[in-house]
């Protein structure tokens, strides 16, 4: 069976006063029906932009999808008309944004913001939409939904707002939900609750999920497959457990070292990755990670590595691991 979503070699560039920012520069991945994948990387690596590209919500006119294909159920989303795309958004593909503080309209009631999509996609009346919104709020675990549905975002706590965002995303029972760092700004206990909620709901509705996060630590628990992005490119992907236990890219290894691991006794200090991500306007000639890589080879600064299968189903774009070595592995 063909995957639900296939992103093929997508390039999304931003035109700024400083030059063209190649935020997403040839990224491919796919999602199967009901599957959860994770897109992992630091801030600014292009993961959010690649997700927005799917919905064609990249801020125009500065940002533009230059090339590539996004096949959803075999249909190229980039070729759809605006009207057809409107029918996709919210109805078939929806998104949960990372900032619940700012992602909800402060002057509309929560219920209204949930029912909006229902009114448009399911031709519901405002009244029915509000009833459905109440039900959805209950589903995402908000107490007293019949009252809360008439409240405004500022009356909700951060965690509750994100639950409301989830309710908005699942309102029309989409086939794919993109969760863009859904838990960054809430505290740890709520993070776990929210992720569980998302997992349960997607399971229940049989919805595919793209979980975008910088926290590789949580990925293994929720996602089946992981795609690691760096500087606008996918640098490694594979089964979540493979990537987690046997990273084939020094960047992935660095990400893992920078987050606490629940499965290992805490013996080492957490180690942030030194240095800054490269300039996306004028990326370095070779491997984008080369400047920050402790293990780099002379080849790394000259030739850009491409994704190669290291072990079955586990790909990486790294000259070092492609030579069969993993010096980061202890």
């Amino acid at each position, binding site marked *: 069976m063909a995957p639900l979503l296939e992103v093929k070699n997508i390039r999304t560039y931003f035109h700024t006063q400083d030059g063209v920012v190649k935020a997403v520069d040839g990224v491919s991945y796919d999602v199967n029906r009901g599957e959860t994948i994770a897109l992992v990387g630091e801030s600014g690596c292009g993961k959010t932009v690649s997700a927005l590209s799917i*919905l064609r*919500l990249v*801020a125009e006119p500065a940002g533009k999808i230059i090339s590539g294909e996004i096949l959803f159920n075999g249909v190229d989303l980039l070729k759809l008309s*605006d009207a057809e*795309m*409107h*029918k*996709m*958004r*919210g*109805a078939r593909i*929806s*998104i949960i*944004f990372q*900032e619940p503080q*700012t*992602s*909800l*309209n*402060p*002057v*509309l009631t929560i219920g209204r*913001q949930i029912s*909006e*999509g229902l*009114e*448009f*996609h399911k031709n519901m009346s405002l009244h029915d939409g509000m009833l459905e919104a109440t039900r959805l709020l209950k589903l995402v675990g908000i107490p007293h939904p019949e009252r809360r549905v008439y409240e*405004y975002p*500022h009356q909700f706590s951060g965690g509750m707002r994100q639950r409301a*965002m989830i309710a*908005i995303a699942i309102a029309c029972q989409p086939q794919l939900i993109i969760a863009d760092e859904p838990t960054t700004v809430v505290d740890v206990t709520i993070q776990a609750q929210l992720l569980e909620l998302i997992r349960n709901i997607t399971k229940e509705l049989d919805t595919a999920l793209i979980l975008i996060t910088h926290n590789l630590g949580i990925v293994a628990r929720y996602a089946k497959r992981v795609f690691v992005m760096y500087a606008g490119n996918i640098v490694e992907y594979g089964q979540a457990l493979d990537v987690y236990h046997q990273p084939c890219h020094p960047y992935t290894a660095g990400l893992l070292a920078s987050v606490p691991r629940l499965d290992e006794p805490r013996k080492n200090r957490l180690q942030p990755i030194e240095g800054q991500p490269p300039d996306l306007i004028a990326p370095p000639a070779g491997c984008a990670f080369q400047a920050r890589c402790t293990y780099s080879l002379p080849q790394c600064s000259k030739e850009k590595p491409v994704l190669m299968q290291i072990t079955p189903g586990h790909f990486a774009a790294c000259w070092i691991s492609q030579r069969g070595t993993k010096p980061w592995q202890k």
Partner: protein
Amino acid sequence: MGRFIIRRVLWLILVLFVVLLITFILMHLVPGGPWDREKALAPKVIEALNKRYGLDLPLWRQFVNYAWGVLHGDLGISYSYSDRTVVSILAHGIPKTATLGILAFVVAQAIGIPFGVAAALKQNSAVDYASVLFSTVFASIPGFVLGILLIVLFAVVLHWLPTSGWGSIQQLIMPVFCLAALPAAQSARITRASTLDVMRQDYVRTARSKGIMESTVRVRHIFRNSLIPVVTVAGPELANLITGSFIIENLFAIPGVGRLFVQGIFARDYTLIMGGVLFYAITIALLNLVVDILYAAIDPRIRYE
């Protein structure tokens, strides 16, 4: 909300009292009284006039008498328009000035807001540049210059409109336009800036992600939020317009309070000045209150206790 309004109104009464007291003191500190003219009046005439208008009493008595009168709705008698009560003078002028001001306000917003929104939606397009240019140019010409240019063009050269006066719709066109030019420009600028700001907000992206109609996104999500700063500025603007402009009323010979008030100041017509200040302060305060209420109506985050 009710308690908030009551508290504001009570506070307003205190402010009015203080404002009147300060005005009263200032007027008596300023050189020149109502009877000072280049062709001097005889001392006995001045004495009789002071007696007639109660200006022979000690100052504190004058103020107490005045304040007592104000509490009873009596603002005294004008010195420069004999025998006319200040209440009747204001009642004569305020409707005209307010009509002009409200019309100018409506015109200004009706021009400014759509222009601002259009400019923001089509940022850096011809519409945008045209609206920026239009608004800055009209904001750069003093009202009386714009006024006389309009009079020359439409009344003297083209004979389309009467030059001045009060009574017909045609007579309103030029003064309303002159009054509206600057606020329209300001409104366009503010709307443009706030719309641009709102368009960048995350919740607009959220709204788009729901796949709803673009027009719904614009009206429900962008416009309503971008209106908030516009309302903040519109309040003082409306107050400013309703209280009248000496220059426009003088230039177009409109029998409004703006002209009366300034003439009253120059004539040291104490009661008329106090009446004008009272009108001004009440208008400002009430409109600020209206803005605050409107503000709460548009933005649910704001609650008054």
